[in-house]
């Protein structure tokens, strides 16, 4: 009997979207509101089947737009429901306004984003442009490397979002097609184990306009006003509270990740970042999502040749685990940050901005360069990753950085 079977888990073949739907099915979600968009579609299709076959006790709202889908989740969450939605690309962009409203209303909505390029030109394939542009919207962002992590992250997400110290919405990113449409073996927990893990939503007490302590939800017995006009005299404090919740989130994410590891036997680093052969590494790449799998293969090859290569995978991009990043890269001599999106006119991609900024005080002498890769689903081959490590070797050897920001994998 394997360890997996001992825990009552079973292995089933799921693509990333199905892994999301399966996890949501197990989490006692009250309201799912969604609108179909490639490559998220399978999530809503699969969940519709669960609803129509009576496998879930969930109000499923097929809205007329993503804007309304997120709105429904937000107000349902305000009433006290556990809520979920899923989208991608243009759908996330259409939600943009409500992303801020959701976090501002402290509604713990969970959302899966099958990461996809933004138009124009229209492209249905993977990059991180859609969710990177929302990095300042007050949502926790977690990026999964494979379908197993997709499944595990969705289950953890409900606990994180609904935690009284957090009460923030959370986005789980899975790379469009690379994960969303790719079949992998996924180890799933028994329904009752997940149900116990996610438990029921609890409501912290807040002071209402009459000075009474009441549960933070729309309750006729204890009326509160959510989403008021908030002017120069209070808005700033409310935004500060959001940031404070973000700052409390890393500890909660780690704690819930650890609790989950106890029931599942699965860990992804410390829940915030995952290091791969980084302990004595001189050369490091940093990436998010499914690319990490390919990078790990290249790291193994390089290690076999005696090259001290390693990888840092950022799992939680928001809140950015700055101390974990600094700690993980302490002894590295050259770093390549890989961005699957472009900040047009900026100084490198968004992940690069964050990492280089985080390292500024601690490792000022570490060479940190940026590679923009894989836009619109362009494949990131082992060969290209190898080239990046070779560039880093050259940087260490010469002490010089030829190009701070480069595009890799272009047809030129």
């Amino acid at each position, binding site marked *: 009997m394997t360890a997996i079977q001992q825990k009552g888990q079973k292995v089933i073949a799921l693509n990333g979207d199905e892994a999301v739907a399966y996890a949501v099915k197990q989490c006692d979600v*009250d*309201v799912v*509101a969604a609108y179909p968009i490639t490559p998220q579609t399978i999530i809503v299709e699969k969940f519709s089947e669960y609803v129509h076959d009576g496998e879930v*006790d*969930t*109000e499923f*709202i*097929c*809205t*007329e*737009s993503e*804007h*309304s889908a997120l*709105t*429904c*989740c*937000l*107000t*349902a*969450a*305000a*009433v*006290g*429901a556990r*809520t979920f939605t899923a989208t991608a690309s243009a759908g996330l962009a259409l939600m943009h*306004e*409500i992303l801020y*409203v959701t976090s501002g*209303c402290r509604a713990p909505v969970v959302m899966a984003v099958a990461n996809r390029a933004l138009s124009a030109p229209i492209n249905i394939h993977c990059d991180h442009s859609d969710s990177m542009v929302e990095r300042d919207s007050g949502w926790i962002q977690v990026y999964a490397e494979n379908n197993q992590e997709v499944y595990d992250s969705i289950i953890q997400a409900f606990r994180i979002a609904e935690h009284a110290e957090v009460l923030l919405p959370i986005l789980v990113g899975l790379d469009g097609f690379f994960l969303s449409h790719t079949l992998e073996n996924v180890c799933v927990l028994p329904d009752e184990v997940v149900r116990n893990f996610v438990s*029921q939503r609890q409501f912290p007490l807040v002071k209402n*306009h009459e000075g009474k302590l009441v549960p933070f939800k*729309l*309750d*006729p*017995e*204890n*009326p*509160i*006003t*959510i*989403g*008021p*006009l*908030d*002017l120069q005299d*209070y808005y700033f404090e409310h935004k500060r509270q959001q940031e404070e919740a973000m700052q409390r989130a890393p500890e909660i994410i780690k704690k819930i990740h650890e609790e989950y590891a106890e029931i599942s036997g699965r860990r992804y680093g410390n829940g915030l970042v995952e290091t791969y052969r980084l302990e004595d590494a001189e050369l490091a790449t940093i990436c998010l999502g499914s690319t990490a799998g390919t990078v790990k293969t290249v790291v193994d090859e390089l290690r076999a040749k005696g090259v001290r290569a390693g990888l840092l995978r950022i799992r939680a991009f928001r809140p950015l685990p700055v101390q974990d990043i600094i700690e993980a890269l302490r002894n590295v001599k050259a770093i390549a940050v890989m961005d699957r999106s472009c900040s047009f006119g900026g100084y490198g991609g968004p992940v690069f901005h964050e990492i280089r900024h985080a390292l500024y005080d601690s490792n000022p002498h570490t060479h940190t360069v940026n590679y923009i890769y894989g836009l619109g689903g362009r494949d990131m081959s082992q060969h290209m990753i190898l080239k990046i490590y070779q560039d880093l070797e050259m940087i260490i050897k010469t002490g010089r950085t030829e190009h701070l920001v480069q595009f890799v994998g272009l047809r030129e």
Partner: protein
Amino acid sequence: MASEWKFTAKEIAERPDLFMSGHRACAGCAPATVHRLVLKATRGPTIATNATGCMEVTSTIYPFTAWKIPWIHTAFENAAANASGIEAALKILRKKGRLEYEHVDVIAFGGDGGTFDIGIQALSGAVERGHDFLYVLYDNEAYMNTGIQRSGGTPLGAWTTTSPAGRKIPGKPQLKKPIADIMVAHEMPYVATASPAFWIDLIKKVRRGLEVEGPAFLHVIAPCPRGWRSDPSKSIEISRIAVETCIFPLWEAIDGEYNLSAPSKLMALRPERKKTVKEYLKMQGRFRHLFKPEFEHLTGKIQETVDRRWQKLLKRCNMP
């Protein structure tokens, strides 16, 4: 749809106000009156939501609120989606035994901008899905919160800051969108129009809208003295004359069957009582330019439009 409530003036007056005084709406603001009247008709636990707009802004300046019931605002174009999410949550939480109330009513309020224009998609979607909620459109016929810009609800010829009374183009060149008919075309169970001047009629319609299973839509005319350039003490009078001129007839459509409400039925049975549109237009500075000789033909066009729409309504109501 029989209600035990008698809707007498005494009974209405005795009911507590759930939309409280102390809000920051302007003097003579009919939308504020409409909100107060609507909440007089609640039948039990109720959750309300507003689209962005004057009434959201003036009623909830943090840390104050005019709402004695749970209330949420999220954005401009999604009041009906707010209601959809609230209703779905109530339904499933009740089913799971996590809601202590037998029933909770849901009311969404939107202005004309939030309903005719930016909110029509969410509204149409929510009604098509059949959520059980009442949508109240308080129609002051322009974007008043941003300072009087024209909307799809602004009537022909009206001055607004984006349809100025220019030398060449005198006010809004387009007609008002027939929003309530658009809602009837959704084959929803209950659509009605109301005026705060006929407040018992309005309150009855709110109650019917709440009692009906599924979505209900109430279109209420709600003069804005600032935007209409009208005397703040005349808002209710203007609301009455809007009905008496048949510019804003009062009717109900229950399961798509149109019926004139009493104040408008009177106009149908006693056409001599029907006032000319000029009586309505002259009370409002936003139509002042139409009384200049060079634009006077427009008042004729407005009268024609009103008459045409009135005849169409009479046919729908099977009136002679």
